[in-house]
């Protein structure tokens, strides 16, 4: 009985505090803030405070929620929550910072791949349910973007799984981390260099930052799927985007940086790991999102699709073939 | 000679498939289908044939003696052929009925024009 209670409290802690809702929300919003700040500095602006996404989130929470006539109420309000839940669940599958994943099981790589699609699907369903033609165009683009980045992402994940598993099956993040335990990070393996590049290009598309934010082009189709959203649901979607930033960079660190484990025992070791992980995520964010955002204009959807199915897929495929041969 | 049967069966099969693949008239397509059936029926009957055999019928004297003095052909393929002929006739009848209906609705039995569902 006592065990059950302790376990419940422990699991509740996982879900609520670390690495669940609280941690991931704060980390995601901070990353989004860093992104905006650094972008501003790159453009020689002062930029908003780092906490700006937090302010945005709470402000939207305090606004009125309007549900248009044409909208389907349940799907309209339910979609952001579904997206949020699936993101939190992904977090519970990720073994980051030397921390064993609470949900970690064999084959979680495919689960994460699918769970990553759910926030996008939630956005699509929500936008579709709002009944706006702008949202219709937006979801069409979102879906095409999803098809675009999913192919290279799949190939990257398979390459990593092959390197980690050798001849056996390694659809498990724990195996991938164990394979990098001795300091032999996958980013240092020459066969995986193209995969690293491909993954760096997949991250901004998955998160949907400029130049790959075709689905939410605010100057063109009025924020696409989000056009009818206001108030709390919009806040949830913004939070989802921020969390996605953190999760994608953390996934990168798991795949190629061994999940950032400095190997120091004790609670301060964990804290140190988390801090280093966050720093790594921030660097990755700046590298693959802010930098590209600052130097590129928004693509057209067909250009984006072509880019991902040729250049990025080719990078990933080269890596998979190299991994297979050597 | 039994080999002739096999050759003819295969020829009929090929002829039928040729008709189905090339003839634009739906009636001819159905005819092609019939020809395929006949080819296969011939094949099955030929399989059951034993050189010098008789019909697979026991006479009363065979039964009394307890041994069959006659060497007879395999009866199973003949039964199969009968079934197959019946089925083939049904297919043809049904296909022709459909052709009539198609003619009433489309005013043509040219297969190039009976293609409202495509792509």
């Amino acid at each position: 009985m006592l065990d059950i209670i302790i376990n419940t409290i422990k699991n509740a802690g996982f879900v609520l505090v670390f690495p669940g809702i609280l941690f991931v929300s704060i980390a995601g919003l901070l990353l989004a803030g860093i992104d905006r700040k650094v972008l501003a500095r790159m453009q020689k602006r002062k930029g908003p405070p780092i906490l700006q996404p937090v302010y945005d989130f709470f402000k939207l929470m305090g606004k009125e929620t309007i549900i248009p006539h044409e909208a389907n109420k349940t799907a309209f309000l339910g979609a952001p929550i579904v997206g949020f839940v699936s993101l939190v669940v992904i977090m519970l599958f990720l073994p980051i910072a030397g921390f064993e994943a609470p949900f970690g099981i064999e084959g979680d790589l495919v689960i994460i791949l699918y769970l990553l699609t759910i926030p996008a699907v939630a956005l699509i369903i929500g936008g579709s349910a709002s009944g706006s033609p702008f949202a219709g165009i937006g979801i069409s683009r979102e879906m095409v973007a999803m098809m675009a980045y999913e192919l290279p992402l799949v190939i990257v994940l398979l390459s990593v799984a092959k390197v980690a598993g050798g001849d056996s099956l390694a659809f498990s993040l724990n195996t991938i981390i164990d394979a990098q335990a001795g300091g032999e990070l996958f980013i240092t393996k020459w066969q995986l260099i193209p995969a690293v590049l491909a993954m760096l290009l997949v991250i901004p598309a998955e998160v949907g930052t400029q130049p790959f934010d075709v689905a939410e082009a605010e100057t063109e189709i009025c924020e696409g799927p989000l056009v009818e959203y206001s108030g709390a649901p919009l806040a949830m979607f913004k939070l989802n985007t921020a969390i996605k930033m953190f999760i994608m960079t953390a996934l990168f660190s798991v795949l190629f940086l061994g999940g950032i484990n400095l190997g120091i025992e004790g609670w301060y070791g964990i804290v140190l790991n988390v801090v280093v992980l966050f720093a790594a995520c921030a660097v990755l964010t700046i590298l693959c999102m802010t930098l590209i955002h600052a130097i590129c204009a928004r693509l057209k959807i067909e250009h984006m699709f072509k880019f991902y199915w040729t250049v990025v897929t080719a990078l990933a495929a080269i890596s998979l073939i190299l991994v297979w041969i050597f | 000679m039994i080999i002739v049967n096999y050759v003819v069966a295969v020829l009929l099969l090929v002829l039928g498939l040729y008709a189905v693949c090339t003839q634009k008239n739906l009636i001819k397509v159905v005819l092609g289908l019939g020809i395929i059936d006949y080819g296969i029926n011939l094949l099955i009957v030929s399989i059951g044939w034993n050189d010098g055999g008789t019909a697979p019928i026991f006479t009363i004297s065979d039964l009394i003696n307890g041994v069959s003095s006659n060497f007879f052909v395999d009866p199973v393929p003949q039964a199969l052929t009968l079934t197959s002929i019946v089925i083939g006739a049904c297919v043809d009848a049904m296909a022709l009925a459909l052709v009539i209906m198609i003619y009433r609705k489309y005013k043509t039995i040219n297969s190039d024009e009976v293609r409202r569902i495509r792509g």
Partner: protein
Amino acid sequence: MFDFLTIDFVRHFPVIAVMGLFLCAFLVEIFGAKNKYIRNTIVLVAAFGAFALITSLVKPVLFDGEILAYWMGNWEPVSGYAIGIGYEIDALNMFFALLVVTTILLAAIYSIKYMARDHHLGHYYTLFLMLSGSVLGLVLTGDIFNMFVMIEIMTFASVALTAFRNNKFGSLEAAFKYLIIGSIGSSMTLAGIALLYAQCHTLNMAQISAVLGSGALSPTSICAFALMFAGFGVKSYIVPFHAPAADAYMTAPTSISMVFSGMVNKAGVYGMIRLVYVIFRAMDITPIQLFLVTFGTITMFIGVTMALAQHDFKRLLAFHSISQIGYVITAVSLCTALGLEAGLFHAMNHTLFKGLLFLTAGAVLYAAGTTDLDKLGGLAKKMPKTAVCFLIGAFSISGLPPFNGFASKWMIYQATFEKATTTGNFAYAFVTVVALVVSVMTLASFIKVTQAVFFGQLPANLRDVKEVPLLMRIPMWIMSALCILTGVFYNFVQQHILVPAANAAFGVTKYIDSMMGEGTAAASGISDYAVQGVEGIVSIWNPKLWLILFAIVLIAVFIVILTGDNTRGRVLEKSEEDSEDGKYATFFGGEKSAHSHVSGSDLFWGFKHDFKGYFKFIQGMHSGVVNDYALWVVVGAALIVVFMFATFMFI
């Protein structure tokens, strides 16, 4: 309580089930042509009877591992030669029979309301029950010629049912194509059976396997193998043979489309598995595996890309049926324990979710009168229950967790990648990638349906659409529940249904011995496959995690409610009539609201643009001309024959 269900008693059940369906088919026409109550009663009794009879076999066959051998009229084998027609029910048959009876029952319930507006329903139910009986007979029989006869009855009934609503667009044409292609397919099967008989002098599948198994195949049996392979390929609609199936699924009444995709093409898949695994016992030959995997992969890719290009709800679903069968064939042909289980699981899930999707399509057709994606929209407001069912089905087929499609697809990816790593063959890794990408495309095409039919704006002519009657919703709810249950408790499904079925396919000797007597298999030198079903593979979900997930959902909802402004200005939905209020109107850049709906053909522009060459080619290939389709079949069959000879003669 069920003590009377001894093995010797239940042994008769399969035959009774098949006979009962055929009998009721004629009773419906005789007694029920005029009176709808008698008609419905007979149909429901037949469907439920078959369901009860088959499910009562679950315990002995699936759980206890018995194999029921039954000789019609007690014609036992004489001096080792099978004379009579035998029914042989092992776990593999049983698995497919379960799918069949479930589909029959649900389709029968659905038909009552769905078909109520049509005339000549006596004919409809006669054909329906004949179709049901023939498919059930096909999966249960152990006699190969009996199988052929069942295939032919199945083809007739399917064709007649496709043309049942012959005043509707294209149904006659679809029926004609279906008949021509289906007949060519069954002719091939018959030719194969004839050649096989010439070789083995028996029609019993177990005995054929025993006779063939001892040595290398002779050219006659290779030819027979290739022809039967092509014949069952036509029946399961793998790619070069698939074109008429899409037409028939589209134009048949929707309850029949569900039957087609739920059990008719499963019967083809069953025939394929029985053929390659048991009769010819050829599945551990690497080229055959690769050949089938190639077929499967091409099928799933072409099916899904064609589906993306469609603008009719039912035709889109039809192409998805083809695509999902590709998954099944791919997984089954890996000849690993995980692969076969994944394939069977996906076949089962396909029956569930595709049946569900067809039923929702039927509900849309029933309520709105059309399934054209360019003319519908916003129906979720009018038909919320149907919309929920549709979303469950759509997420299942797209493989989103926690629905059943995820579990089976996940097993398929794992099986293909495992095969790739254990054999070192890069082709299987490629298959994994294709399978994952096809899954995303599946999602895309269902997003298209979601947007075009259920969300978006309601056209003016659909203002008074009503939710479908309860009797039509019940099958949908049952299937939705099954979709979720098999997804969540998939470990249970795997242990008690998939593993026995897979073991039955791998355990050829047991199949032969229980039919032809102990020691037959050993005498003819047949051995089981080296692989056996794995009992418990790694789990996706931990049951306790479900509580946690539930907690997260609650907390998320809580956050939204708590942090928002509760005092006023929360959810402000005005009544429908008050549409003059600009605040709740759709945003049009300040313009007055007008009907503007992004429908099916408008979606996925960038994707279609980049692939326009491919789409032009593949849509041109589906020309609608019956000769072209026949040519595909001939070319496909010729390829198979050539390949089989190459494999067996030169390896």
